[in-house]
């Protein structure tokens, strides 16, 4: 018994005695919280690919911002928004399908970012942008992440009912007089901000996992949206912290560890849903895939 307690103590306390681990855990918590909230909306709206696209597309923005000495967040934000707007424009003005257009735009921007990176003098490490650099977080990074995450969280939580109605049933949202176009672009802005906030922790390539898994896990476990938000936040923050601690002990990259812990929790939730909840309901779920109280 004492062995287990001592082991757990070492697992948590040893990393915490380092300054860089304290900062990493703060960033992990912030990133987890803001990604979790956004992921609930993306999962309901079917925008997982949008999260993937915007996150790759921020790369040229980061490279240009770093070359011009601007805050990276600004460049990333502009590029992410450009990707979303360009996708909408190309889709509306050609006969190519939306997912294809999105694939073209984000891969083109990502490729451009890579090419620019070879030509631009910058103090950034490409691999840190791509995969995050959780263990190298500085105090200034913590502040930046906190500001971006704080703004995003505050806006989403303040407008959570309007956004929910928009994701759930855009026609109804329009009918009751909500500004649907504003909500659409508002959600895209929030998505870009979230990706900016997560750069430090998981980088542009793995952030899509943070933007899908927590919401999807919560979606399996509840049919009430408020509860879904809470579960997603708990899952994301818990796995961010656990993943960071694990990566410290096994000496592996942090981003992948966080994503794998999330995936493990998803699998547990899936089994729980299959074995426990189904039995408790007493009959198999006969509804077609995708249909639910939470909507299409």
């Amino acid at each position, binding site marked *: 018994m004492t062995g287990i307690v001592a082991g757990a103590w070492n697992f948590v306390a040893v990393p915490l005695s380092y300054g860089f681990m304290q900062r990493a855990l703060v960033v992990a918590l912030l990133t987890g919280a803001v990604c979790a909230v956004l992921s609930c909306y993306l999962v309901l709206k*079917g*925008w*997982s*690919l949008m*999260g*993937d696209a915007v996150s*790759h597309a921020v790369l040229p923005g980061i490279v240009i911002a770093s070359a011009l000495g601007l805050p990276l967040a600004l460049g990333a934000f502009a590029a992410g928004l450009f990707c979303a707007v360009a996708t909408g424009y*190309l889709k509306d*003005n*050609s*006969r*190519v*399908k939306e*997912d*294809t*257009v*999105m*694939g*073209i*735009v984000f*891969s*083109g921007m*990502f*490729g*451009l*970012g*890579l*090419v620019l990176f*070879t*030509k631009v003098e910058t103090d950034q490490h*490409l*691999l840190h942008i*791509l*995969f995050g650099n959780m263990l190298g977080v500085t105090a200034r990074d913590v502040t930046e992440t906190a500001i971006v995450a704080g703004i995003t969280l505050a806006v989403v939580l303040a407008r959570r009912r309007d956004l929910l109605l928009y994701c759930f049933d855009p026609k109804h949202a329009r009918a009751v007089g909500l500004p649907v176009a504003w909500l659409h672009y508002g959600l895209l802005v929030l998505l870009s901000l979230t990706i900016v906030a997560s750069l430090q922790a998981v980088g542009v*390539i*793995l952030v*899509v*996992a943070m933007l*899908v*898994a927590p*919401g*999807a896990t919560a*979606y399996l476990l509840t049919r009430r949206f408020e509860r879904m938000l809470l579960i997603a936040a708990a899952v994301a923050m818990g796995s961010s912290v656990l993943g960071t601690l694990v990566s410290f002990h*096994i*000496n*592996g*990259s942090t981003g*992948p*560890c966080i*994503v*794998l812990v999330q*995936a493990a929790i*998803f699998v547990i939730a*899936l089994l729980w*849903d299959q074995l426990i909840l189904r039995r408790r309901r007493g009959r198999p*779920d006969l*509804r077609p*895939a*995708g*249909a639910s109280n939470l909507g299409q």
Partner: protein
Amino acid sequence: MSELLVPFAYDYMVKAIWVSALVGGVCAFLSAYLMLKGWSLMGDALAHSIVPGVAGAYLLKLPYAAGAFFAGLLAALGMTLVRTHTRLREDAVIGIVFTAFFAAGLLLVSINPTAVSIQSIALGNILGISDDDARQVVVIAAVTLGVLLLKWKDLMLLFFDEAHARAVGLRPVALKVLFFTLLSVMTVAALQTVGACLVIAMVVTPGATAYLLTDRFGRLIAISVAIGTATSAAGAYLSYFLDGATGGMIVVLQTVVFLAAFLLAPRHGLLAARRKATGVAGHAP
């Protein structure tokens, strides 16, 4: 002038250029079908899912194609399982599975950094490809191209009209399995050239560009293959002057060609549509 010929003086550049051209051409062939069905996300997901297989194969010194294929199969199985047992939307299911696989691959590489670098998996490393790997890529691409040339009409019929395809005696399931097998092996080849993050462009952009330029599927394939081959060869050539970023250069070229087609295509381009719109307005009383 002679400066422009410098890349051809290096064996590794010549090899990179023609291997890229081959991979780009065959990927473009497949892109005609993927674009048609709206399966772009599948290409991206496959490219990320095979990464743990590639990392594992390098670690165990097995042929990387075998590892990649195994991982791709596992990921497809995982997606099918999750999709049939939950009420989640398909895009979320694909998103969860492929990111988990990709993360597993990255973790494997980060723990054993000696076997293969993260950078060459994520961003490709065609300029430094070993002769062994190049041979695997060429065999894969040649076999895929051969099968596609034999079966392209059957696949076209299947994807346009499955009921009709069944009526004329084709076997849809077998053909689909064949198509996804070809797609996943080509993904493996493309991973070597442009890296996991940019495979999606190789298997989507040329087909979409060709779709703006023609209404006939046979011609669409020909245009797509021409674009894929030319942009890949040119991208590899230009990357000599950039000291790297071959994948980025290829994809940027493909995107530029797409944008040009979007603007200038004779019938489906933006300018043509504008002209038509003003023409109609001008004739109105």
